[in-house]
């Protein structure tokens, strides 16, 4: 294979909000390369609809302290409170800074940044919903992503578009660089650097029905996991309550923030029973479970497996001005005008609260004692700080990417003089080439698409919103079978350029790894908290389980450890909404 070598101070994997925000900071200290498996503006951050949480108080009184409290309670008290406090107080300057960079936020009549209600965001510590989500219609992610990309171009960040990461090299406990495949040429590129930032996004594609893009397959998490580095709190995977029926496409929580309500087959506004105060604007784990309960108890629409999101009572101007994107795709995909008919919805796999453990500076942790890997950073959905704990609140994800993306870049600049330029040893390159060789030349009866469908089916049926020990054990066994079947894989495309079958096989290999780590974490945690619901352990158990799960790959299989939760201000209490 042709091989090219590059040297940069910082290499960032991923061109979503976290990666771009980190790049804007790191470029102040040295050279920066951003690697993306897509063209940068295709990154999945662009699909974020609803908003960014910040207590600006533009529409009504608000307070970062309330934001802090809501996030802790939303996380089912598993989020680390020092990090959450920092994020919520930083939210205000973060959003103002975006506005100064040029983000076209929607506006109040006085021309200030407009804000809307969102799930779990309240005033006076839970009393009633508050307008905290700063939005640009229902295209907030798109507006911010394009702006940050423009700023990165202006500041001469170097982009390597359509580069698939094959290895993140950690040797002697220190980050050395990244090995990537250029899709267009089929060449191998070695990026040696002082710092590596993993900002690769989520991995919703391990589930059959998901709001996530095709590219969100999580290989970077798996690559670190395979080197013995831990992954934290993987058992917490958020299902967004309102995915379009069958398609899984996201309908923003902003639709309920603007007054939309959920209705069951009897026409009841059932969230009143599950969350008397916040109703449809309760946190996502609560609403997703409520919808599925209604369906399981026969109260879906016409007894079927979906409920209705009703926006027909809203002023059509609101749909037109503040929710144009979702209105448009309801029309395109379902032939349905949400101003006239309710939207069929069902929960859809949406967001990983867990991921690569980091500290507040974005440094990747190697152990529960807080020791870290010099030069290795992570930010955004692939990382776990943890600010979302067991359940993320809507519009805290964009905030997380921006706040901790910036922190990451800042810390790199602070340490650049002490970090030495990495070296990628030949044996790492050989290993990568051998794996590609295996994929391209292996003979067997298995096809990538068949195995991928099987994986997504297992995860959807046994590891989604409701879990049991029995189901999780079965899932682990079935994943082991899949792993064996993967060895029998044979590709029809043997070419070197833009070989999408080979890329899918590579993604699948890592998705099986990640799925296994997730199921293992879910089996370990014998309680129900946030998005992790065990039917055999339906209660939250603070005595035994108020702690983070770290899973590791060892020579004898997966092992686990626990890390205490940082609790500063808000003691765990019963979580009602």
């Amino acid at each position, binding site marked *: 294979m042709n091989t090219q070598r590059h040297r940069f101070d910082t290499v960032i994997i991923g061109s979503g909000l976290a990666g771009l925000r980190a790049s804007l900071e790191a470029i102040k200290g040295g050279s920066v390369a951003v690697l993306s498996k897509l063209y940068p*503006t*295709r990154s*999945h951050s662009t699909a974020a609809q609803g908003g960014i949480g910040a207590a600006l108080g533009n529409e009504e009184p608000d307070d970062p302290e309330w934001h802090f409290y809501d996030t802790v309670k939303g996380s089912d008290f598993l989020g680390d409170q020092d990090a959450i406090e920092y994020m919520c107080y930083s939210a205000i300057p973060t959003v103002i800074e975006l506005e100064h960079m*040029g983000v076209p936020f929607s506006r109040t009549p006085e021309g200030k940044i407009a804000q809307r209600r969102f799930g779990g965001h309240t005033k006076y510590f839970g009393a009633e919903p508050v307008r905290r989500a700063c939005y640009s219609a229902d295209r907030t992610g798109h*507006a911010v992503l394009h702006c940050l990309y*423009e700023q990165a171009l202006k500041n001469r960040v170097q982009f390597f578009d359509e580069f698939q990461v094959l290895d993140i090299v950690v040797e002697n406990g220190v980050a050395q660089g990244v090995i990537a495949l250029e899709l267009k040429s089929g060449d191998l590129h070695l990026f040696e650097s002082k710092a590596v930032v993993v900002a690769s996004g989520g991995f919703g594609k391990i589930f059959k029905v998901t709001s996530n893009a*095709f590219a969100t397959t999580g290989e970077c998490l798996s690559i670190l996991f395979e080197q013995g580095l831990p992954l934290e709190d993987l058992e917490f995977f958020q299902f967004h309550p309102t995915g379009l029926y069958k398609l899984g496409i996201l309908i923003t929580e902003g639709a309920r923030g603007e007054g939309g309500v959920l209705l069951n087959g009897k026409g009841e506004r059932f969230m009143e029973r599950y969350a008397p105060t916040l109703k449809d604007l309760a946190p996502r784990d609560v609403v997703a479970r409520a919808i599925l309960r209604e369906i399981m108890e026969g109260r879906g629409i016409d007894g079927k497996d979906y409920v209705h999101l009703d926006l027909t009572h809203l002023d059509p101007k609101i749909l037109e001005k503040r929710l144009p994107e979702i209105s448009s795709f309801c029309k395109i*995909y379902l032939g349905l005008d949400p101003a006239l008919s309710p939207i069929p919805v069902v929960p859809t796999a949406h967001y990983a609260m867990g991921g690569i453990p980091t500290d507040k500076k974005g440094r990747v942790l190697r152990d529960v004692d807080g020791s870290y890997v010099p030069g290795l950073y992570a930010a955004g959905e692939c990382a776990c700080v943890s600010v979302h704990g067991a359940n993320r609140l809507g519009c805290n994800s964009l905030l997380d990417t921006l706040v901790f993306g910036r922190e990451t870049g800042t810390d790199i600049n602070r340490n650049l003089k002490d970090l030495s330029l990495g070296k990628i040893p030949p044996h790492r390159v050989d290993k990568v080439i051998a794996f590609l060789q295996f994929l391209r030349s292996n003979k067997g009866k298995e096809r990538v698409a068949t195995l991928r469908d099987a994986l997504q089916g297992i995860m959807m049926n046994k590891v989604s919103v409701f879990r049991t020990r029995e189901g999780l054990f079965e899932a682990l066994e079935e994943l082991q079978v899949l792993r064996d079947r993967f060895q029998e894989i044979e590709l029809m495309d043997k070419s070197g*350029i833009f070989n999408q079958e080979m890329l899918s096989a590579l993604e699948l290999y890592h998705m099986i790894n990640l799925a296994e780590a997730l199921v293992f974490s879910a089996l370990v945690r014998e309680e129900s908290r946030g998005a992790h619901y065990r039917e055999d352990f339906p209660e939250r158990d603070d005595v035994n389980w108020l702690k983070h799960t770290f899973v590791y790959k060892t020579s004898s299989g997966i092992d686990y450890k626990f890390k205490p939760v940082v609790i500063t201000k808000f003691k765990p209490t019963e979580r009602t909404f």
Partner: protein
Amino acid sequence: MSPSKLYLFKVKRYRPNLDDRPFWQSYEISLSSFDRVLDGLIKIQDQLDPTLAFRKSCAHGICGSCAMKINGVNRLACQTLVKDLPTLIEIEPLPKLPIIKDLVVDMSPFFEKYEKILPYLINNEPPPERERIQNPNDQEKILEAITCIQCGCCTTSCPTFWTNDKYLGPSSLLKAYRFIYDNRDNASLERLQKIIDEMGLLHCHLALNCLKACPKGINIPAHIIKLKKFALKKALRRK
């Protein structure tokens, strides 16, 4: 859900290092009336021919990856329902961009055009402590332009671009508009001069192909006409 129907997908293919020139390959597949052209392509890739290459990502019209020419019109495969097309569906790569493989074209010449128009907010005054004020009427002016997803459907449908690959194209002109009419930006005239000097504004002859091509329904010619009027008013000409 809905009864399925047989469709014939005729796909223009090109395999680097194998083919001298593109060729057509046909695939017959069964799809439901809710399926999109993208679903059809995925089905082909999964079940019939994994060697077929095309881009995809968000699958709901916000990332711009799956732009291609479908039955003669540039559109997003994820936003085009098969039931709205005849049962013979012809798919080609976006026109006039170098083909890498099958439906995958090299988008770099397209993206490089943006970099010529100062595609970022320029405001050298010290920022206020809070947000810059932009009243809703001011924002209304850029509301349509900011929805662009840079899929390339418009520029690659433009006859001026077909004959002159230096032409900035509707997409970059729209991006310039987005900043020129943003009341927070202070470099309107500089940018306007740039899109005149860089083989841009004056080369648009209003063929209006971009109007039909935009999958986000943006009235791009209306924006370009407004830029032309602005340039006239300022009596700007090529330097």
